[in-house]
């Protein structure tokens, strides 16, 4: 029973971070209707920002406030100068934007590899290896803090999307782009802001993950894969769904790692992905209607 509870706790804590990754992705997916296959690479970039700041003695949680604006600006630039021009181009395949994100991801990975080499980097803080116990269950300090901050960000995001004008415009664009344009929403600007927001959120996830994970340039790919699994699980464009999806993936991964073996961790995620596509296309959104 303890093993089960321990696995449960580990899964939920990891799920909180996954949710943060997923929300950024689902926002981009909802508004632009494209899959951002450079999401993990943006996170990797944020982790390196954290790493560089850490070598100067800045705490990872403080570098959050540097990495997020930086990645926001990068996201804005990517959307404005690389992705938006493609909408106008007349092509046979509509998947050009998706492919473009793959290209951007490659460029980001290689720039980082060029600068920092492929070596694994670590950020060691005083709380990296700290744990505390509730009963028989151990909690990793860094993961608990990360979970808390992730929750705070998620809540802030909800408030932003529901209460502010900008948030409403984003939701309107996601629901119906043409109608939003007719209502006077500058949808071009909204897509740019959304991509920036998505990049900023995933940057936050990167900073929170940095103290408990190792950092290397190829980290992006697997996390991009996780991000789209979460998004598909939750239902495209659904923020509530992304949270469910994140927690589900976190739980499934840690359950799989405990009961099947570490090497099955990734396969379980992918299997869930295919099962959801088959039996619940539309994801949890179909059940929650949000």
């Amino acid at each position, binding site marked *: 029973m303890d093993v089960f509870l321990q696995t449960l706790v580990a899964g939920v804590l990891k799920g909180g971070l996954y949710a943060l990754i997923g929300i950024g992705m689902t926002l981009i997916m909802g508004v632009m209707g494209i*899959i951002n296959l450079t999401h993990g690479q943006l996170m990797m970039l944020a982790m390196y920002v954290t790493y560089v700041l850490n070598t100067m003695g800045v705490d990872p949680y403080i570098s959050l406030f540097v990495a997020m604006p930086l990645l926001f600006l990068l996201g804005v630039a990517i959307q404005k100068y690389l992705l938006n021009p493609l909408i106008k181009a007349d092509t046979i*395949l509509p998947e050009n934007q998706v492919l*473009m994100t793959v*290209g951007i991801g490659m*460029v980001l990975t*290689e720039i980082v590899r060029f600068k920092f080499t492929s070596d694994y980097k670590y950020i060691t803080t005083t709380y990296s290896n700290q744990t505390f116990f509730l009963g028989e269950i151990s909690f990793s300090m860094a993961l608990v803090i990360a979970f808390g901050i992730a929750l705070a960000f998620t809540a802030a995001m909800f408030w932003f999307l529901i209460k502010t004008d900008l948030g409403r415009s984003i939701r309107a664009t996601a629901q119906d782009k043409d109608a939003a344009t007719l209502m006077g929403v500058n949808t071009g600007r909204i897509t740019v802001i959304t991509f920036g927001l998505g990049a900023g959120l995933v940057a936050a996830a990167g900073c929170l993950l940095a103290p408990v994970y190792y950092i290397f340039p190829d980290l992006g790919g697997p996390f991009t894969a996780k991000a789209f699994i979460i998004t598909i699980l939750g239902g495209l464009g659904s923020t509530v769904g992304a949270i469910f999806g994140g927690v589900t993936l976190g739980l499934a991964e840690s359950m799989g790692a405990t009961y099947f073996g570490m090497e099955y961790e990734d396969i379980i995620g992918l299997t869930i992905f295919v099962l959801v596509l088959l039996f619940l*296309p539309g994801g949890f959104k179909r059940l929650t209607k949000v």
Partner: protein
Amino acid sequence: MKKNLLPLAVVALIAALPLVLKDNYYLHLMILFLMWVVIGSAWNLIAGYTGQVSFGDAAFFGCGAYTAGLLATHLGVSTWWGLALGGFTAIAVGLPFGWICFRMRGAYFALATLALNEVLRHVATIAEKFTGGMVGILIMPSFMSKVPYYYIALAMAVASLASLQWVVRSKPGYYFVSIREDQDAAESLGIDTHLYKMLSLAYAAFWTGIAGALYMNYMGFIDPHVVFNLHDISIMAILVGIVGGVGTVYGPAVGAFVMVTVQEMFRSGFFGLFKWLGDVSGSASLVKVAEVLTQAHVLGFGILVVLVILVLPNGIVGDWGKIKRGVFRIKPAS
């Protein structure tokens, strides 16, 4: 017949090349180029003609390669049997996958192909007893010289192009295009879109699998990260298609040539041009440039992806009119 004159001339030229070209390095590049013609044109049928963009060509490529390799390690037969069977293994994997996943459209299907590749890669890694896991499969190549491989690759490339041309001019070929243009309209006209998408997938899987088997025979070594590689196989296949021209018969052939050249150019620092220049002029900075370029070859590749999509979204063959206009405008009137 006159229309086919240019391709035939090119084929004759390529066939005569080993008589003149004795350098193994360039023969190797040519073999890679011919292999990519096969993969690129297979991708072009499923994505360019049928409109079902696949991000997981490596799955079929790996199936073919592993068929050849496993036949050799487990049954002890020649890996060349893989060339005959690899394509069918890929179909055997592709058809059930397609039957399930063709209910999804557009980007969802692309993601599913990506997942298929990931699953196969993990399976090949985990099933150590059967596939050798991360250690991979190593076989002795059948020929010391590269020339036999060259002609086998050439025969495959010609056969795949000829079959592509035949398919797209036949009735299913028009069905494929109608599915790409508007699936609902195609369905309302009585086309069994699910069936034809599966046919198109089977074709693509078959040729990609055969290319994988050739890779196994030629390279003599595979492991899950080499053949089920997202960037080096799947994305490269897409680039070959897009650079050359989506939905054109000869596009991928042009694309394969450009991409293999460019990839190698970055890998070798513009074929050692900068290093040579640096050595000749004695300038240390040029040697440095050469070093930096070789280190950053994947970066160059990535930048190329971005540029190609921005500037030539329909590829060299597809945007040929645009290129011609652009070039002639720049040229001074003389």
